[in-house]
């Protein structure tokens, strides 16, 4: 029998597991006002401050706009306020239009038109209060697990990640896919050395070619910077935790996507389908940016495995922390949600996977994660760097 949960059904049919009012700045110049508005309003208001400039090269700007629009479109957002200084290349009205396509209430706020920082803070608070009145009308109702998009992430990995936590989350992905839902994992640099295994699981040649191409692109970044990838991957914490090479990290990392066929391969922050099976995404391994990419693509819940004990969350999607390291579970229980270290004492992957899946459904139904309880809501936009665009043909797509 397919599992169910209670969620917020939006006008476009997608189901939210939270009912936030998002406060989205279009640039760094509006970020502090967005943060100020949300901080004063209350826990229901979630700001997504970021550091993107008011002008950016075309490919960079397109990705920034896609991420910001996707954040507003995520079904966990009941209503959204877009904040601008008023001189950005990404203008608030067109961003608001992209969000409003989903049928939710969206407002804009221009710091310049409102009369400055203080006036914008005051006006912003009025607007989000009004948006919250509208959003609060929504009620949780029955939804199928098939309506969930579940994102798997890893960060602060150690040797237990590949042995315990990632296979357990992968098992939960398998369960969701069997129930008709969508699962996504990403972090393309952590496919390096394991891409041949993923390639065999691709549903068709087109998906396979794209996946292999993106892995080669990411590996090429080490060439571009003229350095050994080991300067960044595996990280010092990974190495202290027993991971020696990127291949070893990758072979453990891909386990978090489970074992089902790879039905598609999404670009960074490209909208993920409902009922799509397993659809990985091209993102950096940098966990905060990678989580944001999948949440901007519509994921409602994230499972984040961590051997060393990463404590980060996300403002829009609840993040379930899963650790396979018994010491981390003991020392950092306040920041961890699921103990997968029992695998090392003999609990089966299937059994821990079932616990992760049950946690996913409970969190989807409203149970708060440890990161949510502590207000840990890290947010960052992945920036396509000028160095990546050097020599690239003008305005080339996503620039990678």
């Amino acid at each position: 029998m397919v599992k169910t949960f209670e969620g917020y059904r939006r006008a476009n049919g997608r189901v939210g597991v939270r009912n936030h009012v998002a406060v989205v700045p279009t640039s760094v110049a509006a970020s502090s006002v967005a943060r100020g508005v949300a901080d004063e309003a209350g826990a229901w208001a979630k700001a997504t401050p970021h550091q993107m400039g008011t002008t950016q090269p075309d490919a960079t700007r397109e990705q920034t706009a896609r991420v910001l629009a996707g954040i507003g479109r995520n079904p966990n957002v009941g209503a959204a306020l877009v904040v601008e200084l008023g001189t950005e290349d990404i203008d608030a009205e067109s961003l608001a239009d992209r969000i409003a396509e989903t049928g939710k209430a969206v407002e804009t706020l221009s710091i310049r038109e409102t009369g400055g920082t203080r006036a914008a803070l005051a006006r912003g608070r009025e607007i989000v209060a009004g948006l919250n009145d509208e959003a609060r009308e929504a009620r949780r109702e029955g939804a199928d697990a098939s309506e969930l998009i579940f994102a798997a992430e890893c960060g602060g990995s150690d040797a237990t990640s590949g042995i315990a936590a990632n296979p357990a989350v992968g098992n939960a992905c398998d369960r969701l896919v069997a129930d008709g839902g969508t699962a996504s994992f990403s972090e393309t640099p952590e496919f390096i050395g394991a891409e041949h295994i993923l390639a065999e699981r691709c549903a068709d040649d087109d998906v396979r070619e794209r996946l292999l191409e993106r892995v080669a692109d990411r590996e090429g970044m080490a060439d571009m910077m003229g350095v050994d990838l080991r300067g960044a991957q595996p990280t010092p914490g990974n190495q202290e935790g027993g991971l020696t090479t990127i291949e070893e990290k990758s072979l453990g990392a891909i386990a978090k996507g489970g074992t089902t066929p790879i039905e598609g391969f999404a670009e960074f922050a490209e909208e993920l389908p409902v009922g799509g099976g397993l659809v990985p995404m091209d993102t950096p391994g940098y966990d905060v940016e990678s989580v944001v990419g999948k949440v901007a693509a519509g994921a409602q819940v994230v499972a984040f495995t961590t051997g060393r004990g990463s404590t980060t969350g996300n403002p829009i999607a609840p993040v379930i922390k899963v650790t396979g390291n018994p010491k981390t579970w003991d020392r950092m229980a306040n920041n961890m949600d699921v103990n997968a270290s029992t695998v090392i004492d003999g609990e089966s992957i299937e059994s821990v996977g079932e616990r992760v899946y049950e946690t996913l459904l409970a969190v989807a139904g409203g149970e708060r994660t440890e990161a949510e309880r502590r207000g840990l809501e890290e947010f960052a936009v992945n920036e396509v760097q000028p160095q990546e665009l050097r020599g690239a043909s003008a305005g080339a797509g996503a620039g990678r």
Partner: protein
Amino acid sequence: MKGVVLDDVALLMAESDTVATAIDDLDDGRRIAGEGRDLSLSEDVPFGHKIALVAHDPGDEVRKYGEVIGRATDPIAPGEWVHTHNCESTRGRGDLAAAGEEVAE
């Protein structure tokens, strides 16, 4: 857990692997016997780190999960700790490309 636990303290993920993973902090001299293997650690190996099961010459493949995870940079005897000091990646080596060398696959 996938794989086979050797003597309660080390995890062998696949039969063809040349290393096993310590699932406890292990001391120098610890004997690991069973499943047709018998070796003694020649140094401390911390939780999560790898133990050589077979002898590796420099350049030999190091295997875990039934896959290649890197190559030995030094001779490694059975029972030695395998990590960044004696095993290196063959991938993402922009440093070698920058030095004008061929990156080995």
